[in-house]
């Protein structure tokens, strides 16, 4: 266990920050767990590979094209398969359909790539800087972009959700779609905007992750489960805490990996921490509130009258 391990773990976990932000946005908006959404990252990463490596597109064009395509695909998927469930408030049916969509995407991508792992050749990041203590590692462009996402994207998104008119409309639709419509908010437009943004964020995560670790059809499957776990444990309405939680989880996982004998528990420890998070959020917090309420009442009753 060392500072190097912890810092390295925290840094690498930032790759999931855009995805967890996108997931939380969509989860709060739709009132269900969009398990399929991280797979937009898989598709975007494969599209980036196709554009850059097979079609010979320019690197920047490939990445932007894949990002936009990821967003558009997310919107299309939502409109075709999930919008009805969201309108009818059927979170369990939507979740099940999301599982099915994830599996279909994973298998279709697997079939199309014959299951082979792929790696970017022309898009492989060439820029790098050797970093000394405490990281003792080589930083590449995707590392910096994902760090930037944590530093800029998370606060910016939090601000826009909580302190802008568009954010107000988003919260209104997320809270009660029919009431929001009655107050003149165009819920369909908010739907499109939110899902496009959320899918693009997931696409961003997928592309960054693929640039660093290569492409496999299952590349977002394990991360997706962690993202869901964070969203459930922390609550999808807490964007900043979700982003921090996913990074902390990465740190804990890497600390575990560095200990011989405990490395196999790497993923298990992350989930254990999340179970504690769920208990704290959904069991202990309400208990604490109830207790605080009771105590407050008693104190109020004890106050001398007059």
């Amino acid at each position, binding site marked *: 266990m*060392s500072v*190097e*391990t912890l810092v*390295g*773990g925290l840094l*690498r976990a930032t790759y999931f920050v855009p995805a967890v932000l996108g997931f939380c946005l969509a989860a709060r908006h739709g009132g269900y767990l969009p398990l399929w959404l991280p797979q937009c990252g898989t598709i975007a990463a494969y599209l980036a590979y196709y554009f850059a490596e097979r079609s010979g597109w320019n690197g920047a064009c490939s990445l932007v094209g894949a990002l936009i395509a990821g967003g558009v695909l997310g919107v299309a998927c939502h409109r075709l398969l999930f919008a009805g469930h969201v309108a009818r408030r059927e979170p369990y049916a939507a979740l099940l359909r999301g599982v099915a969509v994830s599996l279909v995407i994973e*298998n279709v991508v*697997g079939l199309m790539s*014959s*299951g*082979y*792992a*792929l*790696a970017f*050749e022309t898009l*492989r990041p060439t820029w*790098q800087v*050797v970093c000394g203590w405490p990281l*003792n*590692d*080589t930083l*590449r462009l995707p590392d910096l972009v994902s760090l930037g996402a944590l530093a800029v994207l998370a606060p910016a998104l939090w601000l826009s959700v909580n302190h802008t008119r568009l954010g107000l409309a988003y919260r209104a639709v997320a809270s009660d779609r029919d009431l929001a419509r009655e107050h003149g908010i165009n819920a369909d437009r908010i739907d499109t905007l939110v899902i496009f943004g959320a899918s693009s964020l997931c696409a961003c995560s997928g592309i960054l992750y693929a640039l660093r*670790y*290569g492409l*496999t*059809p*299952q590349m977002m499957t*394990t991360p997706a489960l962690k993202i869901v776990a964070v969203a459930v444990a922390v609550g999808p309405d807490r964007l900043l805490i979700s982003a921090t939680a996913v990074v902390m989880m990465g740190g804990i996982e*890497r*600390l*575990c*990996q*560095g*200990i*011989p*004998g405990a*490395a*196999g528990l*790497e*993923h298990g420890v992350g989930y254990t921490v999340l179970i504690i998070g769920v208990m704290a959020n959904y069991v202990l917090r309400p208990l604490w509130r109830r207790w605080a309420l009771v105590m407050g009442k008693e104190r109020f009753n004890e106050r001398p009258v007059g």
Partner: protein
Amino acid sequence: MNIKRQPLYALLATILFVGAACRQQHPGAVAVGALVPLSGPNMSYGTACRQAYEIARDDAKHLGRAELNVIYGDSLMEVGPTLRQYQDLKRKVVAFVEVAGSGPALAVSVEAGKDRIPILSAIASSPKLTAGGGDYFFRVIPSDEHSAPALSDWAFEAGLKRAVMVFNQQNAWATGFKEAAVTAYRQRGGLLPDDAVIGVTRDTLDFSAAIAALKRKNPDVWFVGLQGAQAGLFVSQALDKGVTQPFLGVDNFDEQEFVDAAGRAKTQVRFVLPAVARSESAQRFAAEFRARFNREPGGLAFRAYDAYMVLVSAIEAVQKAGLPLDGAHLQAALRQIRTEGLTGSIEFDSNNDLKRAAYTLWTYTPDGKMIPAPQR
């Protein structure tokens, strides 16, 4: 989905499945099974085998040799699904040209021994299969019991006396390789303590913590018990963290996915393969593979081709002798096999493992070409 359309979709799916099944039938061909992963995270193994069999079938046809009808079962390279698929196929085939994965092969070989169905494998290299594979399990891949000592010999002769190891603890091949390598290296006097061996999981893609922990041991050499892209990512990340020592492996480095993922770190690997690993016929096969599938064949494709041809030879031997084509006669024929494959001469010892004389140490050039490694 409109509920009225559902029967239509079901009918369409059924037609597709039946069509696919009918396409597999070759009249007059001998039915053999292949339990390989056709989906899931290990799918690339199944794809490589299927592609190699396709070329082998065409070559056999061109040479007027026996034709095999390969019936596939999706094993996912896991014990449970492999056993289920074996039970489904065992009455339809005379032998299995592949049971992918050391763990599944160990489990199936017990059943195959009882059912008297020969199994060949181009993937399972665990030393446990030498004794545990039984009389009906053959393999065209050298056991790690032979390759790990060859690797340790090289390391020790090169003065690399302090080692560390990383391996996938959820993979039967990797655990077998770990045991074989640790035993061989320690027997030669090398220092490889238990706390210098770190196990990771099959989902691990970032190894920064394991590399940092192992780097603190100041090793002369790193044993890598990971496969394919995962092995490539490990050596690439180790290089990023300033590791300059060589990485040692066996056939796990002989895969295109490894080369793609390793990037410039591939020149730092050393791995042992049988001395005659790339014959002229192997080069012809590689050219055909590239032309058909638009990618470089990995080591598995060569071995899968060899497994197919070995089975063809055994079937022909039984047919020529006028004996009934059953498991017992096929097993006896396989034991008599002496042939030149793409990966060198193929002959089985008393444990049905490959008889191998010498190993060569290999590495990669910066452009990904496999070359004999310079001796230190």
